[in-house]
C-alpha cells in the first residue's frame, strides 16, 4: 500500500546502487524532480531504462549515476543531440556507458509484457533493421500457427519504476491524464514503484475509463509540484520548449554542464 513520503526518503528507501531503474513519461510527465534527487543522493552503477533518455538521463549520465542505458531514441526532441549521452558514448566521460538499444515499438511491447508478467515480448518488428546485429537481446521466434518469424525481446521488469502524475487522492490512488506513455506498464512491471504528483486532492474526480493506478500497486507517493518541469503536466503547466533549446548549449560543454547541475540540482532542496 502506498505511503506518502518525502522525495528524499522515497529515493533513499527504494533506489539502491546497481539497481535497474526506469523513470518514464513519454515527453510528458517526465519525473525530473525524482531524477534530480537521485543525482543529489549520488546513486551509482544504475541501469537506466527509458524509451527517450531526454534531458533527465542526460543529466544523470553526465553526473555518473549510470553504468548502463536501455533506450530507443536518445536525442533532444526537435533540437538535436543529448550531448552528455554522446560524450559518454564517444569519449567515455565521466566514464564508459554500456547501451542496449531498441526501437520504440520493441520497448513499448517489452514494458507491456513486463506488466503482463511475461518473460518476453513478441512483435512484428526489426524487419530489415541492423539493430539485431548490435543488440544480442533481439532474437526471433516462429509463430507455431502460421510459421511467421517474429521478433522476440526480454520483457522489462525493473527494480524501481518512477513516474510523475497529476494527482493522488488521500489514499494514494493516482490519476494520469494526457499522453500516458508507458507509465502504467512501468509501475505494474516494477518490484517497487514511486509516483510523484503535482498535488494531493480529496477526490480524483475521474472518468470511469481514466488511467488510474490504485494505491496498492504503488510503494511511495510523493507530492512534488512542478516535478515534471521542464517537461510538462497536462492541466498544470506547458513544456518549456525554450529550456529544451537552451539545454543544447549547456550540455555541450562539460564545465557549463557541471555549473548548471551545481546551481540547479545539487544546491537545491529536494
Amino acid at each position: 500500500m502506498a505511503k506518502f513520503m518525502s522525495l528524499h526518503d522515497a529515493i533513499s528507501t527504494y533506489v539502491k546502487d546497481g539497481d535497474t531503474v526506469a523513470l518514464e513519461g513519454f515527453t510528458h510527465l517526465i519525473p525530473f524532480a525524482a531524477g534530480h534527487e537521485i543525482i543529489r543522493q549520488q546513486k551509482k552503477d544504475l541501469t537506466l531504462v527509458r524509451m527517450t533518455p531526454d534531458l533527465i538521463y542526460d543529466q544523470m549520465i553526465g553526473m555518473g549515476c549510470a553504468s548502463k542505458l536501455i533506450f530507443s531514441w536518445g536525442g533532444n526532441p526537435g533540437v538535436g543531440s543529448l550531448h552528455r549521452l554522446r560524450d559518454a558514448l564517444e569519449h567515455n566521460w565521466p566514464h564508459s556507458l554500456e547501451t542496449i538499444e531498441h526501437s520504440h515499438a520493441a520497448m513499448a511491447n517489452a514494458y507491456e509484457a513486463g506488466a503482463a508478467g511475461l518473460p518476453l515480448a513478441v512483435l512484428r518488428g526489426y524487419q530489415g533493421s541492423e539493430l539485431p546485429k548490435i543488440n544480442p537481446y533481439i532474437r526471433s521466434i516462429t509463430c507455431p500457427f502460421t510459421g511467421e518469424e517474429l521478433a522476440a525481446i526480454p520483457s522489462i521488469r525493473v527494480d524501481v519504476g518512477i513516474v510523475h502524475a497529476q494527482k493522488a487522492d488521500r489514499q494514494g490512488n493516482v490519476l494520469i491524464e494526457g499522453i500516458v506513455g508507458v507509465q502504467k506498464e512501468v509501475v505494474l512491471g516494477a518490484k517497487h514503484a514511486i509516483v510523484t504528483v503535482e498535488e494531493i486532492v480529496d477526490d480524483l474526480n475521474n472518468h470511469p475509463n481514466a488511467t488510474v493506478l490504485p494505491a496498492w500497486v504503488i510503494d511511495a507517493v510523493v507530492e512534488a509540484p512542478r516535478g515534471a518541469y521542464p517537461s510538462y503536466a497536462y492541466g498544470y503547466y506547458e513544456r518549456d520548449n525554450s529550456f529544451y533549446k537552451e539545454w543544447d548549449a549547456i550540455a555541450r560543454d562539460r564545465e557549463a554542464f557541471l555549473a548548471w547541475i551545481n546551481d540547479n540540482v545539487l544546491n537545491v532542496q529536494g
Partner: protein
Amino acid sequence: MTATYTPSEMMTVTAARSLPNGAVCFVGIGLPSEAANLARLTHAPDVVLIYESGTIQTKPNVLPLSIGDGELCETALTTVSVPEMFRYWLQGGKVDVGFLGAAQVDRFGNLNTTVIGPYDAPKTRLPGGGGAPEIATSSKEVFITLKHSKRTFVDNPDFVTSVGYGRDGKAREKYKVIGKGPTRVITDLCIMAPEEGTNELIVTSIHPGVSREQIIEATGWAIRFADSVAETAEPSEQELSILRELKARTAAFHAASGA
C-alpha cells in the same frame, strides 16, 4: 504567375502534396510534421495525423517541437498509450503512410539514424531508431523527406536503422507481412521513387530551376534519372502563405512557451 519561394518551402509543399486527403499518416517529427500539417491545412483537410506519443487524429494549430507536445494531445480526437499506439494502430495495419525523415538515406531507401562510424566507436552518435524501424515496415507505404546533400544521400551507410529495400534492394521479399516500403523521397531538389525491378531510387521529377548536375553533385552515389523526368509544379501563393503563417505561429508560440 511565379511566386518567390525558398528550396525548403519547395520541399515542404511538394512533400505535403504527396499526402492524399483522407489518408491515415503516422508522422515523424520535423520536416514530415511540417509537410503533413501543411497538407491538412490545404488540399487534405480530412487527412488523419497520428504521432507516436499516442495522439490520434490530431490537428495542431502550431507545429510541435517534440513528438509529445501538449498541443498534439489537446487537439487530438483521442490519446492512447504508447504500447497501444505501436501494437494496435501501427502493427495492426491501420496506417496508410509512414512519413519519415532521417540523417542519411541510401540508394535503396534505407535510413540511418543510429551512428556515423563503427557502432562500438562512433564518430558521431545519432539519436537512434525511435519509432522509425516499425513505421518503415508496418505502414502500407512510406514517404521520406530530407534535404539533399552528399552528407545525407550516402552510398553504403554505416548502419541501417530502418529498412527501405535492404542493402541488396530485395529485403522485403523475405517477409510474409510487410508494407510496400518507400514509394517516394522528396528533397529540396527533386522527387525520387524506387525503380521497378531494382528498387533503386531514381529521379522522377526535378524542381523548377534545379539542374541535373546539381542533383548528381548532391548525391553520394551515381544517381540515375527516369526515362521521362517531370518538372515539379511550383508552390501556389496560397500554399506558401499558409505555410508561412504556420511557421510564424509556431515560432511565436515556442518563443513564449514555458511561462
